[in-house]
């Protein structure tokens, strides 16, 4: 089987990559385009570490055959905060949303996707919006706080010293 030349837009830049059509979009991003910010955690579409925005929607790039990216607009973590920290990135820093950081790129993209659909999300909506992004370090609490901060909502949280 021959490789195919596929043209698409990545982080605002037009790119063309020649690759086997069933090569995973994840591998094209990480290896052909050396955009290693998108991570592989499971290869099953369960953990969300490979999440990117694909035509404006959150998808798991480990489950996208590269040929289906023809003409698509893809945004990876490298495309976030190109002109200074994105509010979601800033919130993840101040609220402790990142511990080991491996889930963080996918989590940030999932948050951006969530806030685009629900600019002032309830906790219920945040839980649902992030349910496809697994985090083993944080227990999610600091991530919820980061999402709420980014959304400009004042979160009520217990003062650990009261």
């Amino acid at each position, binding site marked *: *089987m021959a490789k195919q030349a596929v043209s698409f837009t990545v982080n605002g830049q037009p790119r063309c990559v020649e690759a086997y059509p*069933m090569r995973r979009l994840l*591998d094209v991003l990480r290896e052909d385009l050396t955009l290693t910010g998108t991570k592989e955690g499971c290869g099953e579409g*369960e953990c969300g570490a490979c999440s990117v925005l694909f035509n404006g929607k*959150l998808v798991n790039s480990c*489950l996208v055959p590269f040929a*289906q990216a023809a003409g698509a607009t893809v945004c990876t973590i490298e495309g976030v905060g190109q002109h200074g920290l994105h509010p979601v990135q800033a919130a993840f820093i101040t609220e402790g949303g990142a511990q080991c950081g491996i889930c963080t790129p996918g989590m940030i993209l999932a948050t951006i996707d969530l806030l685009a659909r629900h600019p002032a999300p309830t906790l219920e909506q945040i839980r649902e*919006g992030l349910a*496809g992004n697994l985090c083993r370090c944080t227990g999610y609490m600091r991530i919820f706080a980061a999402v709420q901060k980014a959304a400009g909502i004042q979160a009520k949280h217990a003062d650990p010293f009261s």
Partner: protein
Amino acid sequence: MRSFISEYEFVTARHLPGALQILSSGAGWRSIAGSTDLMVLFNAGKLPCRRFASISEIEELRRIEASDDWVTIGAAATYSEIRESATLQAEFPLLCQSASWTGGIANQNRGTLGGNIANASPAADSAPVLLVYDAELELQSTAGRRLVPYANFHLGYKQMQLQADELIVTVRLPRPSRDLRQYGRKVGTRKAQAISKVSMAATAAVENGTIVDLRIAFGSVAPVPLRCKETERVLRGERLTPSLRERAQQTLLLEIAPISDIRSTSEYRAMVAANLLGEYLEKLG
């Protein structure tokens, strides 16, 4: 990533006739859309088919349209598109609900109704819902077009009435003619992004405490998604009483044949199925 990627062939069909041509070539081509089932197998090195024709670009396969009698859903409509459809929310809420159960947001943005059907898993989230909504599938090939009631579609475990050269083109649902009391519940391994252990869908028309008509279907309790006609027979036309509930549950336990597998046990599935039915009947009464 355990597959040998250079062995896989992939073409993109832009129009339905072109897709059907490829499928009828006899060279072992399969359709692929959202890829959320097939790519999991691919990643695991468990995808024997080597030739895929993508149908995601075929616009007519993604429409959701309403006519007087039917709502027609393109087979390549994604779960997200189903959830966002105002028509489906209003008239077929169980379908929107089941679409919210499948994977997380990322998988809902890609996975399709046709893919869920063609994967032919008895655990498919949409299956019991399509059964109680009396769904019809429109299948097309170069030889023509046929309509298959979804209730007849699954023939056995992972076997379906879909020829190698056929494509599921649309799923159509007859628009309800009266008010229905609807129920859908999935019991999975966790609250989100979970494979189903048992799922139930039901609709009923109730007048003055009597069940005028109803539909009951379960997933993950048989080799195929199961429309529970025996149980419906026990209930149809009857007044809702606790003893009727018990009779229905007993009948259901004889009608289903759940198995034990890596996720759950047959005893659990049986008990939960009976309890979900009981929960629904109690709500109706």
